[in-house]
């Protein structure tokens, strides 16, 4: 579990996060949603320790990241898997080397054992026979899956995903979302996904946190989204005609 308590973050005179307080539950896919500029990515970077909040605390399980010394923070990061928007695979390494990278850096396993684990996670994300290919030689969807494989290869406790299905066609986007949710349940990890894709919210939003202008304006499950009359939620969700129609159907069905 990750607990966020009254987090404030500014850049210069501009306050980006204005006192965010929430919890991200273990074994669930927790979504941070909001319009561009709402502070989603800044919150994510604060969670990852890449940005240091001026005020407030972020707890990983029971310990605040602010109270950790460098060694404890380094150890914590070994327990974190991250899926970047563009995949962030290392261009100079092939797929096998990319996925093996966290194992090479943080474990003392033999190469054969590492290779076995790499093949296991590649199979888990439905990728086989791509080991020797380079990132530029595979599609965007496959790159995302390799990135997921790299994120989970060292059995993390926390998984962070930044816009995991941006730039993907709807079918592949659904596949990636489903994969993230399955892995979250399978490994019983705390997953935090930053997105503005309403399809993702509906498919995997076991807990949804809505940010607006740096403030948390609503939180709940994806099912509760249809029932709430919070203006910020309705303005964000029903900016799409499709979702307006879905809501009407849901309301009719009670």
């Amino acid at each position, binding site marked *: 579990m990750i607990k966020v308590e009254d987090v404030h973050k500014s850049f210069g005179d501009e306050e980006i996060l204005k006192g965010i307080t929430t919890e991200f539950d273990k074994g669930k896919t927790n979504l941070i949603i909001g319009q561009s500029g709402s502070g989603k990515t800044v919150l994510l970077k604060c969670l*990852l320790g*890449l940005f240091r909040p001026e005020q407030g605390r972020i707890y990983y399980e029971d310990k605040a990241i602010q109270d950790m010394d*460098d060694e404890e*923070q*380094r*150890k*914590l*990061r*070994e327990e*974190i898997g*991250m899926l*970047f*928007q*563009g995949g*962030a*695979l*290392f*261009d*100079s390494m092939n797929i096998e080397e990319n996925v093996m*990278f*966290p194992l*090479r*850096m*943080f474990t003392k396993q033999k190469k054969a054992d590492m290779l076995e684990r790499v093949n296991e996670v590649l199979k888990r994300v439905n990728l086989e026979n791509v080991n020797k290919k380079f990132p530029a030689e595979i599609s965007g969807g496959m790159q995302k899956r390799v990135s997921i494989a790299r994120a989970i290869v060292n059995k993390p406790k926390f998984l*962070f995903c930044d816009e995991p299905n941006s730039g993907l066609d709807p079918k592949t986007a659904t596949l990636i979302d489903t994969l993230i949710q399955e892995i979250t349940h399978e490994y019983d990890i705390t997953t935090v996904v930053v997105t503005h894709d309403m399809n993702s919210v509906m498919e995997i939003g076991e807990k949804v946190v809505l940010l607006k202008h740096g403030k948390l304006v609503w939180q709940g499950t994806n099912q509760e989204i249809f029932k709430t009359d919070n203006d910020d939620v309705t303005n964000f969700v029903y900016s799409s005609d499709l979702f307006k129609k879905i809501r009407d159907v849901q309301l009719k069905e009670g």
Partner: protein
Amino acid sequence: MKYLRDIGSYFLMIKKVFGSFTKTSVLKHLIFKEIDDLIIDSLGIVAFISFFVGGVVSIQTALNMDNPLIPKSLIGFATRQSVILEFAPTFISIIMAGKVGSFITSSIGSMRVTEQIDALEVMGINSLNYLVFPKIVSLMFYPFVIVISMFLGIMGGWVAGVYGGFSSSSDFVAGLQESFIPYHLFYAFFKTYVFSFILATVPSWQGYYMKGGALEVGKASTNSFVWTSVLIIAANYIITQLLLSS
């Protein structure tokens, strides 16, 4: 003010490069890769340029010797001095600022743009140590490139001087041996080491702290060449003043 900030950020980067080391087995692999990319891959262009510029120095010296009282051995002497003191260490370093410097900036810059550096940081890896330290170590082998450049430059001078009919082989070789001061080699290699540090760190700084997209990677590579060259020329002047003027 911006320059002061940049200078500060450059020295802070150097400090971070030597903090929190990457796993030794991984570093070893990275260093060999960098030696291949930065040193071995540069040998061809360095050999080509050194041989022909050495030849040109020899021909220019010969063509400017109007007075029959000046011995022909001066051609060998002038070629040796030009190549060892300036051409090989300084001129080749400027060329390397273009070749190796642009490569370093664009490769690190691309990693910044595509979030690969963020990925390293999130994993708890000191990205500066991981990316820059192997480059500094691999460029410690840069003096070997300069040795090859010196040898081929003088060889080019000999070929152009002798086969161009400007000097006999014995005169040229006599010139090479004339008034040789071993301290000049120390001076040449001392400044080569200084240049190698500049070649590894300034382009890395340009790439690491760049902001923006693909266009900015190109701009950073250009800036990297300009600043690396400027610093090499400035360092050359200061080192020459300190080591040779007394």
